[in-house]
């Protein structure tokens, strides 16, 4: 009598989230939730402070800066876009934590995969922000050392 159990090949090759991995992922999710909420609150506050103070500064010193007003507005808008990108990344990170947590507790593979997609989007936004920051730093170093 043949007692061997035949498993489909795909099942044999399947990678599973083990107990330790699941536990650490749940803790990672908790910390990412905290990080996302702290970032949203902090960046939102900074966004409001810069928007408020920037427009106030331009209103008070607008006549003195009349020649460079365009550049000041441009810099202000760039800073606000920078903060907005951080806020979007934090919101997507919050979505990741919610989806992965729910995916594990409801044993829902689709929700878990959606959570991973949210994490990917977070890292895409962070990657673009850090690449642009690096390029700007290099540009400022080159312009101050070679063009002045």
């Amino acid at each position: 009598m043949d007692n061997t159990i035949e498993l489909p090949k795909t099942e044999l090759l399947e990678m599973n989230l083990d107990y330790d991995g699941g536990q650490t992922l749940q803790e990672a999710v908790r910390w990412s939730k905290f990080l996302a909420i702290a970032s949203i609150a902090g960046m939102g506050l900074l966004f409001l402070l810069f928007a408020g103070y920037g427009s106030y500064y331009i209103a008070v010193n607008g006549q003195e800066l009349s020649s460079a007003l365009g550049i000041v507005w441009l810099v202000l808008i760039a800073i606000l876009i920078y903060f907005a990108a951080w806020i979007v990344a934090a919101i997507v990170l919050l979505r990741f934590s919610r989806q992965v947590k729910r995916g594990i507790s409801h044993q829902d593979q689709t929700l878990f995969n959606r959570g991973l997609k949210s994490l990917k989007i977070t890292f895409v936004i962070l990657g673009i922000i850090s690449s642009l920051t690096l390029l700007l730093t290099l540009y400022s170093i080159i312009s101050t050392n070679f063009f002045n």
Partner: protein
Amino acid sequence: MDIQQQQEQGEPVNELENFFNISFDSAARDQLRQIALWAKICSITSICGYLIELYLWLFGQSRFFSVGGGVLEVLLNLLVIGGGATINYFLFRFARAVSRGVQNMDALHVNSGFNILRLYFKAAGILVIFILSLVFLAFVGFLLSDLQRMQ
């Protein structure tokens, strides 16, 4: 039946059961591959940025945190540059572990990658609190000095 429902109905909860039902299928592996790629880009560019900031702080004229020299400046620079580089090193290790795990179909590497991701989020969370409170204090100080100057 999920854990919450089991707890509500007073049934014993076996968390092990839950984790084994989540697998890294082809869609998840594809997402993990892209997560690893972008995490690597993010960590490498950030570490390069912090190295440039370190060089500028030590040998250059412009400074990332210039507060008149002294212990405060050293502390701020160490906190931002050292802390930032450390968390990005965690991110790089996470990316390396996950990409190796996905490439070799090895769940052990992917699961250890999640452990490093936990450390990354933990360290980043603590650093964000420090930096946001410092930036907020600096902004309030700048605002007060500007108001005093105008009066």
